[in-house]
């Protein structure tokens, strides 16, 4: 009796591990392949059959890519837009989430539903009227225009995530802060905000990656000042294969780096020490 229960538990465990490994592989294998290809010389990329382990490592492909006319500027544009989006959506979203968490006001529930409904509009359709509006406002083909749209896309989830994060911060803590010398704003900054940071970090990752990867709106709203995905989307069909691998690698890396950076911060706040 005991043995079968133990073995069924091991089986369940084994199954869970198997599924986890499969999911990890599903994500990691393409990343690996792209990375390998990005670091291989062009003839290897064109060659067949392809080997799993790189035989030669060369920076030729990457250099070729970087030196292409527009790559570095548009990479830089992507970074700027993503950071701008981050700043806007947190600056607006965090206080909104706080208000939702701490206060009861008329129309609160309608507000929440309205927030979610903004995501119901497909970005591709929104982009065109937005482009027209931005042209009228003299904002067309600027990074701020793209950032504004990205922020609008990211805000609903940001607000809902931050509101649940702030609900998790006990009201008593802010009251204690107010007793010991803070006004409402200081209590927010010194107590509520630091404790909400892990949740804010999580929504920051989401916002950054959303902005970084966003292609359609960026393509429609810009002409000269394109972000990297927008550029590539437009140019990729006409590009050679090594180029595409290098481009994929370039789009991948910053998002990964950002996630790793924020992850440390998240963990240290949760008390998990990284070795």
């Amino acid at each position: 009796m005991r043995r079968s229960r133990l073995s069924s538990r091991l089986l369940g465990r084994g199954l869970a591990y198997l599924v986890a490994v499969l999911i990890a592989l599903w994500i990691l294998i393409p990343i690996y392949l792209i990375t390998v290809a990005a670091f291989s010389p062009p003839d290897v990329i064109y060659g067949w059959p392809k080997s799993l382990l790189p035989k030669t490592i060369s920076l030729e492909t990457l250099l070729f890519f970087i030196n292409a006319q527009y790559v570095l500027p548009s990479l830089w544009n992507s970074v700027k837009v993503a950071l701008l989006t981050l700043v806007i959506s947190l600056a607006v979203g965090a206080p909104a989430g706080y208000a939702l968490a701490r206060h009861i006001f008329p129309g609160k529930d309608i507000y929440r539903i309205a927030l979610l409904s903004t995501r119901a509009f497909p970005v591709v359709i929104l982009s065109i009227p937005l482009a027209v509006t931005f042209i009228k406002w003299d904002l067309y083909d600027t990074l701020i225009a793209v950032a504004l749209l990205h922020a609008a896309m990211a805000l609903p989830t940001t607000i809902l995530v931050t509101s649940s994060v702030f609900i998790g911060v006990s009201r008593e803590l802010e009251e204690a802060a107010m007793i010991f010398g803070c006004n409402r704003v200081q209590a927010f900054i010194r107590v509520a905000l630091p404790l909400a940071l892990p949740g804010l970090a999580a929504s920051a990752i989401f916002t950054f990656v959303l902005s970084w990867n966003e292609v359609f709106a960026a393509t429609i709203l810009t002409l000269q000042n394109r972000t990297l995905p927008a550029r590539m989307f437009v140019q990729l069909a006409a590009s050679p294969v090594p180029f595409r691998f290098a481009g994929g690698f370039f789009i991948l890396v910053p998002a990964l780096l950002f996630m790793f950076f924020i992850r440390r911060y998240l963990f240290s706040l949760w008390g998990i020490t990284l070795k």
Partner: protein
Amino acid sequence: MAEIRIEGVRKTFGKVKAVWDVSLTVHDREFVVLLGPSGCGKTTLLRCIAGLEQVDQGRVFIGQRDVTDLAPKQRQIAMVFQNYAVFPHLTVFENIAFGLRMQRKPKDEIKKRVLSAAELLHIEDLLDRYPAQLSGGQRQRVAVARAIAVDALVLLMDEPLSNLDALLRLEMRAELKRLLREVQATTIYVTHDQVEAMSLGDRIAVMKDGQILQYDTPLNVYDKPANLFIGGFIGNPPMNFLEGRLQEEEGQIVVQVGNSQIRPSPEVQALLRRLEDRSVLVGIRAENIDTLHTPADDTLPAEVLVVEPLGSHNLITVQVGPERIKVNTDADFKARPGETLWLRFNADKIRWIDKASGQALDYKFARPS
């Protein structure tokens, strides 16, 4: 340190009258306990004094200053919360230093004050730790240290011991009393535990349904409760109440309890004469009843129902007429269920209650000052 004065404070939440027309004065360096069952308004009153709730009516004075419209940080108070409210993202040192840092005190003064507060609470070894690494009792000490480090005019405590286990609570109660005596802070302490109230307070304000029913020293609240509710709420076991019928006998008033009579003193008779109703409640605590095995003067017969030997004394439940009361006896007093005992009430300790209103006959409700 300073005196606290509350005048005619009212606070409602929607339809609920949490605090209604409450007036109270706490003298400088006094330790006052707000005692009452859940929902009586004691925590709301404390939060009104702290400034965490805005009063609907009335005024609050701390140290001669009208603080009614001031924010908590301007009232020069410190508070210990029920769930400690210790900041999880700061070290113990930074927690205790929080109030001092907000006051922009110089670094060495902060360090000195934090260390002395930590020493008083015996947590000087924990200063570098984070609250997540501490036990509940240690976190509570941090909360108290944070409150005394700031050297406020007034110390407010909202059931600080109720989240501790029983043994720790006992220890901390004594420590808290000793500590606060040393610090000499004017303190308002909220609790629902009457043992805590009795042991800690210089004076107890018993609250129910948003009002203060009695405001007096622990001994007076214990011996001379203002009404039926307080007599039953304070003390373990609660005060016994027996029904008595008034009868005229040769110009004297005697009180018939069950099949026996109590002959009250002339002063008491004067009080009893003023009752319109011919019935009264006789309140007497279990330890103020003498028990005898044989009848004697001024004794009532009672049948033993249950004997509980508690080690230091016996708690005996007896039947007097139609009512059951509890009596304390020596540990070696022998009694068996079914046996008849003879009870003598200590006349000085009898609390006479008007049955109709529930109020004690000789209690004149004075403005709590």
